[in-house]
Structure formats: structure tokens, C-alpha cells
């Protein structure tokens, strides 16, 4: 029964997974460009940003159509409204990956001691994004809760990176512009973690019908 609607919901899920994969790839490439100084890769991340934006539009259009045509209630309504909110976070993740890639192109292969910390932070953030999309696909509340908990880990990384940069500045071992660029990159990763947390919260709402307490 309602097999056409079910097919459309399945298609919506498939597109969300695809958009999630695009975001993962964007952050992973931005992180790789940062650690290897690969300018071509950084340029590619910036070029792919438009595809993520387009995907957001497409999914938004599909959701609006489903709301209009199917007048969903209960779990169907939750799934579609969660999808509408999640794509906004995904689009922001895509933007922030682009922002990181843009800064990487200015760094010109410049590197520093303690760079590994940012790389570790990037890995933790990518994992959050992957797990949040995974939690959505599998309707896995436990995994979504893990993502939310992992945000504290990413926040810790941000503090560590920040204090690392502060000591670099006090020791005069780096130039100001480079230090600020790095701080921006770390902040972007930290924000990506926040967006992944939002996605995880929408997964919990979509499955249980309850919001996490504010």
C-alpha cells in the first residue's frame, strides 16, 4: 500500500546519503589538501561546492513536493521535515569545507609544528559527519547519540589547537597571518562538528519523535 509514496521516500533517502557522501568527500579532501599542501585538490573542493548547493535545492524541492502531494503525518512527516533541516546543515558543512580549501590555497604549502593536531581534529570531524549520515540511513539512535558526544572531543581539539597557536605567537615562531589562518581552519572544523551534531539530533527526532532537550 502507498508503494509510490514509499518509493519516493526511498529516493529521498538515497539523495540524502549521496549529499552526505559529497560532504564527507569535501571535508576529507580539504583536510588532505591541508596536510599535503596539494593545491589542485584544494581547488577541486572549491569547485565541488556548487554541486552540494545544487543537491540542497533538489532535495528541498523533492521534500516540498512530497509535503504537497502526500500530506504526510507521523513518521513520514518527521522523516521529511528532518530531511529539510538536515540538508541545511549539510550545505553549511560543504561551505565550510570550501572555506578551509580556500585558506589552504593561501598557505602555499606553509606548515608548522603541531600540525598533526589539526589533522587529528579533521579526522574526528570527518568521522562525526560520516556517522551522522550513517545514523540517518540506519535510523540508529545510539549512533546519533555517539556523534553528539563526540562533539566534545572535537571542541577539546579546538582548544588544544588554539593554545598551540597562542604559544607559537608568544614564542614568535610563526608569522601572524599564518597563525590566524590556522585558527580559522580549526574553527571551521569545529563548526562542521556542530553541524554534524545538528544532523544527529534530527536523526533522533525523525526516529523517536522527540527532540533532545535544549
Amino acid at each position: 500500500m502507498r508503494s509510490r509514496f514509499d518509493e519516493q521516500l526511498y529516493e529521498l533517502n538515497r539523495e540524502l546519503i549521496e549529499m552526505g557522501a559529497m560532504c564527507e568527500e569535501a571535508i576529507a579532501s580539504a583536510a588532505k589538501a591541508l596536510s599535503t599542501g596539494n593545491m589542485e585538490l584544494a581547488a577541486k573542493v572549491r569547485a565541488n561546492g556548487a554541486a552540494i548547493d545544487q543537491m540542497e535545492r533538489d532535495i528541498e524541492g523533492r521534500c516540498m513536493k512530497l509535503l504537497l502531494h502526500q500530506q504526510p503525518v507521523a513518521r513520514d512527516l518527521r522523516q521529511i521535515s528532518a530531511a529539510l533541516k538536515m540538508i541545511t546543515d549539510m550545505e553549511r558543512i560543504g561551505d565550510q569545507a570550501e572555506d578551509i580549501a580556500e585558506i589552504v590555497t593561501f598557505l602555499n604549502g606553509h606548515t608548522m609544528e603541531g600540525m598533526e593536531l589539526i589533522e587529528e581534529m579533521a579526522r574526528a570531524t570527518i568521522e562525526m559527519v560520516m556517522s551522522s549520515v550513517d545514523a540517518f540511513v540506519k535510523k540508529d539512535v545510539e549512533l546519533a547519540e555517539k556523534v553528539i558526544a563526540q562533539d566534545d572531543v572535537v571542541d577539546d581539539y579546538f582548544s588544544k589547537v588554539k593554545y598551540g597557536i597562542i604559544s607559537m605567537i608568544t614564542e614568535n615562531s610563526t608569522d601572524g597571518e599564518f597563525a590566524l589562518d590556522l585558527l580559522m581552519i580549526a574553527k571551521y572544523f569545529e563548526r562542521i562538528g556542530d553541524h554534524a551534531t545538528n544532523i544527529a539530533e534530527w536523526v533522533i527526532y525523525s526516529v523517536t519523535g522527540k527532540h533532545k532537550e535544549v
Partner: protein
Amino acid sequence: MSIIFVKDMCLWYGDHQALKNVNIEIPEKSITAFIGPSGCGKSTFLKTLNRMNDLIPGVKITGDICYEGTDIFSKEVDVNNLRKEIGMVFQKPNPFPMSIYDNVAYGPRTHGITNRVQLDEIVERALRDAAIWDEVKDRLKKNALGMSGGQQQRLCIARALAVEPKVLLMDEPTSALDPISTSRIEELVMELKEKYTIVMVTHNMQQAVRVSDYTAFFLLGELVEFGKTDDVFSQPREKRTEDYITGRFG
């Protein structure tokens, strides 16, 4: 506050059990929607609330229905008075083949009101409450059968209101109407809940969501779930409810 209390109610049509242990409290001055697939017992239950099922041969009812503290099946209850308190509007508009005025005055007249001035007042108030006064005030002597379907249905609501009921039972009141008439009735019903308790059977799920405060879901003679409409349609407690409202029943 609840106005009708139903406890362990069962109903049989001959050997067939149409309602099974229904327990529900109908909240006063609010709109309660009954939903469920055809044959689930929701209309049967609605009709039991003002003893319309008494007229069907072979019906057996057990359990209690209390209206304002009185058992509606007790011997002291005058069925005509009960139906004056608990009025009914049907799926198809059924005005009597007489003037608009006489349709509305019919109930009050049968309850002994003959004073012309008093009747005029009652008719005007009922037609105003049913949001049709402005459309018919200049043709009260015209035959009601000349009105449009939507107007006829509002006339039937006015006729029900003329005897000053406290509860209005509505059995799919908009299913025979066009979208414009439907939304007029829906808005009317939402206004009426300030003064009256409304219980409405509907097959239109969106109507239940738009209009009602409470929703009861019936399936195979059972009251599966009853709760605030917002809760029932966002997080139903029962899987059977969820399957029905999302259209994945069966």
C-alpha cells in the same frame, strides 16, 4: 472536563459484535474526531451516544454511557429529551421539504414553543450560529430544497442548534460537499466549539488534523487509540494507528 463517559461498552447487531469494550471520555466544548476504516464501528458508536441505534432491530448494548452524570439507558431518560441535548447532523444534508423557517422552527415547535416572537428569535439565533443567516434572511419562506448542498447542510446544523443542544454529533458532515462548502462547515464547527461539544466522524484525515482537538481511532470495533489530535498525528502510541494514518494499513 468531560461531558460523556463511556465504560466497557459493547454492541452487537444480532450475532455480530460491532463494538468491543469501548472506554472513552468526551471532553466538553471541544471537537473530537472519530477516524477509522469503513466498518470499524465509528458511526455505530456515534449513533449510540444519542441512542439512535435503539431504532435498529436486533441491537444489543452492554456497558455504560453517562451523559452529564446520567446513564442514558436508564428508564427515567426520555429519548426525545436526550436527542434534544445531543443533536445529530448527517452525511447527506436532509432538510425537510418545507420552508427554511419551518425547518429550523420544527424542533422548538415539537417541544411546545408556539409563540411567534419567541420562534422568530430562536430561528434567527440558530441560523446565525450556523453561519447562514445572511444568506437566507430574505427568503425564510422559500423551500429549503432550493438551497445548495452546502447551504442545506448548514441549515441542518441550524435545525440541530435550534433546540439548544449541548452536544452535536456529526456523521461525515462534509463528505457530500464541495471544497468551498467543506471549509465553511469546518470553520463553522471550530466556532461552534465555544458553546457546544462536537463529535465528528470523518474519513478525511486532513480534516481531522485541521479541525479536531482530540482524535479517536477505531479498528474492527475496537477503540485503538484516543488522545490529543496533535499527538495522535505526530507520535501515535499504537502501530495500528500509525499504519492507518500514514496510509499503510493492511
